[in-house]
């Protein structure tokens, strides 16, 4: 099998060798043609500029999560998609040539494709440097193209930033209005409570001041006339409710009431409140009530008429005690008021930061975009790689020549080896006659071009003994 393959390869190689002059001619023609093409390719001048996009600028620190311009401008894929799209490149073409004809869509498409092929963008995601490389046969045009691309990139992103900030500002304005109303309502509730239960407020304030921030639930309400229920410890539920309310308030600075997390938190709060109410209603009454009375009335009575019985019930309690639900209500009001006020202040700060950002991006300043290397006019061409092209031309020429010789041999159906004859016709090849001078007779052959078969020189063929 291997021998057959070897024979086949040998015969085919000999066929190609037989047409070696054709192969040489074809290879020469191909090489010359490709060389002319290679040297006809115009020089390519590279121009490039570099832009630094700051991710952590003072502005972004101020805006925190409000800015929508984070992590957006350094993504290489996004940059390519935005800078090298047809619209942008058409703008570049128009900038380069004011008389650029856009009537023929095919020509426009071709010009855009050619321009896209000459541009490469290298964006390093980790450090924020973006490089715009342009190659052109005209060095000045290469520099202009790079400059236009950089300007377009920066201006487009500035527009985008402005748009983002405007939208963020509008959203913050709405939130501020909502929170202002919430804050007013909360302050109104606090004021009302303070007017209704000044003593409770005073005790709570005093207790907080004396206890150094102790829990209001430890503040007792003096009660000597009203039977009070056995105190049920709902502080854990209260804490959970407070946490949920804080979370809702925080979410509302960025989202609306319809946001799923807000809705979920609201329902959680409602469930917790229901649980707390159930616990309180199930608590056993220790002392009989003197009549149906509302909470505030009972507190007033408690404050006005302290009794010994009550003191006996709360023997271990401080001297002045308040009703637990009132203190809890007061604490809730205060907490809600503080939270809303805090969030309101944050919203105001962010709105101011947004205005600052807008002021920066709205001017001609580059904002967070800094040109670290402006494109320059290149002086030395970097392409084409004529050496490589010539080497490739050589390889193609050799291949083409060999292919031509092989095809010629295949088409002509010639024989280059005796074995071919035998295989083809199933007849014996009884001999060969070689026409190739041997190395040791080369000189003699030149001197004696004609081999005399007959006549006086016949001995040359017959041998010296003839």
């Amino acid at each position, binding site marked *: 099998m291997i021998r057959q393959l070897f024979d086949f390869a040998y015969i085919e190689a000999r066929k190609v060798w037989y047409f070696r002059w054709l192969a040489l001619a074809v290879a020469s023609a191909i090489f010359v043609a490709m060389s002319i093409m290679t040297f006809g390719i115009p020089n390519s001048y590279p121009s490039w500029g570099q832009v630094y996009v700051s991710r952590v600028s003072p502005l972004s620190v101020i805006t925190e999560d409000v800015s929508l311009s984070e992590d957006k401008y350094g993504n290489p894929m996004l940059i390519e998609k935005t800078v090298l799209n047809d619209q942008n490149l058409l703008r570049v073409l128009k900038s380069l040539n004011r008389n650029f004809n856009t009537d023929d869509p095919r020509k426009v498409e071709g010009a855009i494709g050619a321009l896209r092929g000459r541009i490469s963008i290298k964006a390093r995601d980790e450090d924020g440097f973006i490089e715009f490389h342009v190659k052109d046969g005209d060095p000045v045009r290469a520099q202009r193209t790079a400059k236009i691309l950089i300007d377009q990139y920066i201006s487009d992103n500035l527009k985008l930033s402005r748009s983002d900030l405007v939208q963020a500002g509008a959203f913050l304005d709405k939130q501020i209005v909502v929170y202002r109303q919430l804050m007013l309502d909360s302050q109104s509730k606090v004021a009302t409570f303070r007017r209704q239960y000044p003593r409770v407020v005073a005790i709570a304030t005093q207790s907080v001041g004396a206890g150094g921030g102790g829990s209001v639930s430890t503040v007792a309400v003096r009660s000597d006339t009203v039977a009070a229920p056995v105190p049920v410890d709902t502080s854990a539920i209260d804490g959970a409710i407070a946490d949920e309310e804080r979370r809702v308030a925080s979410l509302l600075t960025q989202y609306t009431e319809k946001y799923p997390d807000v809705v979920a938190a609201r329902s959680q709060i409602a469930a917790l409140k229901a649980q707390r109410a159930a616990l309180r209603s199930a608590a056993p009454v220790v002392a009989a009530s003197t009549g149906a009375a509302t909470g505030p009335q009972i507190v007033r009575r408690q404050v006005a008429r302290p009794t010994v019985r009550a003191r006996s019930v709360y023997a271990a309690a401080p001297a002045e005690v308040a009703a637990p639900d009132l203190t809890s209500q007061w604490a809730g009001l205060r907490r809600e008021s503080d939270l809303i006020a805090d969030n309101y202040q944050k919203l105001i700060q962010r709105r101011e930061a947004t205005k600052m950002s807008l002021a920066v991006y709205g001017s001609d300043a580059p904002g967070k975009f800094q040109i670290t290397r402006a494109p320059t006019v290149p002086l030395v061409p970097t392409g084409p790689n004529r050496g490589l092209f010539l080497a490739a031309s050589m390889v193609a020429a050799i291949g083409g020549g060999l292919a031509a010789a092989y095809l010629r041999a295949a088409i002509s159906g010639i*024989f*280059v080896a*005796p074995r071919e004859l035998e295989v083809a016709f199933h007849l014996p090849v*009884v001999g060969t006659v*070689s026409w190739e001078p041997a190395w040791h007779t080369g000189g003699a052959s030149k001197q004696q071009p004609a081999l005399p078969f007959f006549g006086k020189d016949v001995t040359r063929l*017959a041998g010296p003994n003839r």
Partner: protein
Amino acid sequence: MNQSIRATAVPVVKLQASAEDSTPIRKAAGNDDARRVGAVTTPHFDESRTREEFRAIKRHMMSRIAAGPGANNLDPRTILITSAGRREGKTTVTLGLAMSFMFERDASVVLIDADMRSPELSRCMKLADELGLLDYLENDALEVADIVYPTSVPGVFAVPAGRPRITASELIAGERMATLLNTLQGEVEQRIVIMDSGSVLASSETVSLATHAGQILFVASKGETKRADVDDCLEILNRQAGPIDESRVALVFNKTDTTHSPVRYSKT
């Protein structure tokens, strides 16, 4: 000349025609006006190599001659040399083979130039203007001895083509051609008749000659002979000149290089 080659035993060929030669050849050989023959222009052969290459071909032919007539009852001493196209080396092979047969003891060779379209053999031997084959075939008054010319090489005789005629094919296909061949071979066992014919695809007389040939040597040249042409030739010969098989037809690969030569080492 190399001393070792000088010592090589080479068959001695008698300078005079064999004693057993029949009349026409003896008459021609005894003619004091034996025609001068010229040199044949050939490529720059490595002579010793070429000698050996033709010896290889000759051995094959001799073995067939020794085997005697085959089923077709054709005399294997009558050898036709042909090819598919022009300039493939028929005349060269004819001359080389003749020279090789010359070395055989008591052998004599008659070369017939039967290539009527290009009588190269006649020109080589400077017999182009002499009476030849076609003259003999047309003119009953001529005898065989009138067209057989001795050469300066003992044992080798030549029959030129003669003056060209438009009826060449018909004349060769005639009965007189068979008579000529029989006469030339006569009773001499060692006489070999080699016919240098035209290409099968170019001249119809080649097929006529093939009907008389006990051996057909088909010359194919490297890089020139096309397979389709050889196929056509063999088909024509098979159809019109009897069965073509390996007992009758052999191939010679001409114009090849030394890599295909059966002679690996040679010196002059």
